[in-house]
């Protein structure tokens, strides 16, 4: 106990505790009070309880100035982790919002409890620098998400998607654990700074190479980069829409943050180099290979997709590739804090955009019964609001100014360009990224053309968007627009938090 008592610990963990209590509350409210109520009411009530829990958690996060470093990094709470947790809770709140009108399962309490528990796992994931805690919270998140993906028992695709997600995910977890065991053995430490110090003596040990590759493989699965992406299209398409939204947004934010921590803090000194013509072994070239594969394959495969959520999945793979550029820039100390700010801005706005896009998909699938892109014909007439929101989200994903996606990409690419002090070493990656962004514009516009230009069935009635969905969609769209037009709103606090953090 390094001068930290249980009460300090509880104070630092108040947000997580609040969410766990909310999860228990939603479980028992649904099982006890709402047992015989109709399904719609149960969903609304449970959503209200879960949403209230999220709001309370946000309040605690905003008001507490907790600053704690417990047991050499088992628990790290500073203003930076608080900010990332705010992103996560907001994304969860939106996810809960788009599930308010759902009716895919009769296990309503369990559904919302699992959403909240997955978020708790993500929150622990961002506020630790110790490999045991990283593994435990990663598994808490993953196991909750596997079950969420399978909750829709009406269709066989949901269970198929969940089984695939589970099998790929647990193999990846096994790789991570094996890699972590090698890291522990080589360095003799379990906290990231100790690992970095311990690994210095083993820089050219082949065992270290295996360990680095295995750990990155495991996280590569979580963030769905090529070649560990095979689960993503099925899971995004088959899982219930809100669950897919959480998998695509919140878990991405947390995984990228912790991957950056492991690579930059834990594998400090074994960066190697990913610069063109001077590749040197380390984690940078590994990330470079993954980034190129994801950007190229993700964007090219997305062109051929006919299902909206499948298209979003491939575009998510491509976006993961862009973020890896930012992580690579963090490998160069001169650029570290700028690149970290760019990465966080990118994943936060990307998560917001994705939740919004999945929100549109959820309304459309509920009304039309299928999520194929062809079915979007005439959407602008049937529901101008949905079509407008879809346009904002997709154009932001494509990176059109003044939306948030443009500024996010701009930040990432400038960070990657300025990273290598010896010259424009990462320019080749940025070149590929820009070329592939242009390709991506094509398939996003194809969807929008279907929604705006192609005339649908003239007889089709207007789509009524329930108020909960309308609230979430408008909030997300306004957020995407505002953060794009005034990026300083987010970048300013992020830069201050990074400067005041524990050196990361």
């Amino acid at each position, binding site marked *: 106990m390094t001068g930290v008592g249980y009460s300090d610990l509880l104070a630092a963990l108040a947000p997580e505790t609040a969410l766990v209590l909310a999860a228990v509350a939603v479980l028992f409210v649904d099982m006890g009070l709402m047992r015989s109520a109709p399904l719609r009411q149960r969903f609304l009530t449970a959503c209200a309880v879960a949403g209230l829990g999220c709001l309370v958690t946000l309040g605690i996060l905003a008001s507490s100035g907790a600053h704690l470093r417990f047991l050499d990094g088992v628990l790290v709470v500073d203003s930076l982790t608080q900010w990332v947790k705010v992103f996560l809770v907001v994304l969860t709140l939106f996810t809960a919002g788009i599930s308010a009108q759902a009716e895919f399962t009769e296990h309503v309490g369990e559904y919302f409890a699992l959403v909240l528990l997955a978020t708790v796992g993500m929150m622990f994931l961002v506020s630790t620098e110790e490999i*045991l805690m990283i*593994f*435990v919270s990663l*598994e808490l998140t993953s*196991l909750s998400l*596997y*079950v969420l993906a*399978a909750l829709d*028992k009406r269709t*066989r*695709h949901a*269970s*198929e*998607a*969940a*089984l695939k997600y*589970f*099998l790929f995910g*647990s*193999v990846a*977890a*096994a*790789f991570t*654990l*094996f890699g*972590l*065991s*090698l890291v*522990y*053995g080589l360095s*003799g430490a*379990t906290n990231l700074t100790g690992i970095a110090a311990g690994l210095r003596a083993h820089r050219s040990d082949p065992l270290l190479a295996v360990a680095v590759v295995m750990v990155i493989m495991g996280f590569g699965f979580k963030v769905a980069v090529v070649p560990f992406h095979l689960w993503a*299209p*099925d899971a995004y*398409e*088959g899982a219930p829409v809100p669950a897919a939204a959480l998998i695509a947004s919140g878990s991405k934010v947390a995984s990228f943050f912790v991957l950056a921590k492991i690579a930059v803090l834990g594998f400090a000194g074994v960066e190697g180099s990913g610069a063109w013509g001077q590749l040197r072994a380390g984690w940078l070239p590994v990330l470079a290979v993954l980034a190129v594969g994801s950007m190229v394959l993700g964007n090219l495969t997305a062109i*051929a*997709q*006919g*299902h909206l959520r*499948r298209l979003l999945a491939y575009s998510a793979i491509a976006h993961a590739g862009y973020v890896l550029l930012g992580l690579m820039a963090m490998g160069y100390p001169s650029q570290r804090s700028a690149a970290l700010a760019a990465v966080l801005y990118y994943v936060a706005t990307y998560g917001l955009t994705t939740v919004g896009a999945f929100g549109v998909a959820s309304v459309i699938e509920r009304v039309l019964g299928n999520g194929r892109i062809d079915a979007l014909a005439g959407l602008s007439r049937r529901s101008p609001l949905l079509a407008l929101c879809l346009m904002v989200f997709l154009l932001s994903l494509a990176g059109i100014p003044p939306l948030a996606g443009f500024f996010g990409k701009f930040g990432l690419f400038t960070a990657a360009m300025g990273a290598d002090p010896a010259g424009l070493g990462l320019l080749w990656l940025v070149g590929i990224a820009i070329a592939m962004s242009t390709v991506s514009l094509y398939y996003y516009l194809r969807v929008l053309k279907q929604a705006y230009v192609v005339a649908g069935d003239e007889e089709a009635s207007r789509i009524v968007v329930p108020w909960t969905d309308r609230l979430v969609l408008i909030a997300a769209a306004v957020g995407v627009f505002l953060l794009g037009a005034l990026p300083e709103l987010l970048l300013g606090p992020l830069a201050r938090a990074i400067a005041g953090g524990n050196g990361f």
Partner: protein
Amino acid sequence: MGELARYLVLAALLFGIGLAGVLTRRNAIVVLIGIELMLNAANLNFIAFWRHGPHPEALTGVMFVLFAIAIAAAEAAVGLALVIAVYRHYRTTNLDQIEEMKG
């Protein structure tokens, strides 16, 4: 070969056997068994590194394995539940026949 190296080789073999099971077997239950083998190989690594490491008096490796065992059990539980859910729809646990989504 030192004692530590022997443990490491054994763990690597276990991991390889598990991975081979995952990649070659088509039955979901057998794949689950393979995953458990892989996790336990990592546990063996942890124990070996702890026992032969510089600080065997600090119980880091043992703590890690304790948590890993509990997590592996939770993972097995979720996996079995998912296999049951799939079985209810497809009436099979053969992964080759659970392949409807493509693209």
